[in-house]
């Protein structure tokens, strides 16, 4: 199904995702969408342990205040929206309490994020582009049919 509905909690967008260490066994997580995060997924250390994620790299982050973070462990893993195929990405293993998905997740999953006053929607970018073309075509047709005022 191309369109999924998430929720707004205290003004912040959340979606349900599946995470997996190997693309086979998976666990469902509620994840905050943070479009200011350029990475794939940040997952709490407790969840990473339960999943069996193995960190083999580190990276630094530029924080919102412009400073650089302490090194954060990275692990290879898989994630997707429920019903979609898994995509590979780098999981940041954090000391925070929430799972966070970033721009790399939305891009790798090929998703468009629509934020409305009462909720959020994710949909396939291909479907979104097709609907834009369809709307544009309808708009052109309507313009062509609108009679011009006689002067």
């Amino acid at each position, binding site marked *: 199904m191309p369109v999924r509905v998430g929720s707004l909690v205290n003004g912040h967008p959340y979606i349900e995702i599946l995470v997996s260490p190997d693309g086979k066994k998976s666990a469902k997580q509620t994840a905050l969408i943070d479009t200011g995060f350029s990475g794939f997924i940040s997952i709490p250390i407790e969840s990473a342990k339960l999943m069996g994620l193995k960190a*083999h790299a*580190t990276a630094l982050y530029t924080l919102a205040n412009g400073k650089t973070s302490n*090194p954060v462990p990275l692990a290879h893993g898989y994630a997707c929206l429920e019903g979609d195929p898994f995509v*590979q990405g780098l999981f940041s293993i954090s000391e925070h309490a929430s799972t966070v998905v970033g721009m*790399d997740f939305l891009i790798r999953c090929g998703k468009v994020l629509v934020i409305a006053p009462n909720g959020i929607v994710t949909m396939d970018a291909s479907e979104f582009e097709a609907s834009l073309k369809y709307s544009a075509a309808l708009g052109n047709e309507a313009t062509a049919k609108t009679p011009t005022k006689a002067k």
Partner: protein
Amino acid sequence: MPKELVHATPSCQEIAERGEAIYGEKYRAELEKTSNGKFIAINIASADATIADTGEDAIRLALEKDPSGFFHLMRVGHKAAFEAGWYMSCAR
């Protein structure tokens, strides 16, 4: 087992410091002229570098070369590999 054969797992801080030092010594001058914006995974044991368009590709390719290696991921021309959003910057 002799002490010199026991390899302790390095800490995140040690991996990052070693990776940043290797990058500064071996790669920065050249890559910042030619590969700005690319991701580089540095193997802290061999000082080998794997360069790719994405961080995921750089780490995956580096792991193919050395499956038991430890790597520091950097982005050429940037202070850090990734940008953290508000939550990762502020939440406790």
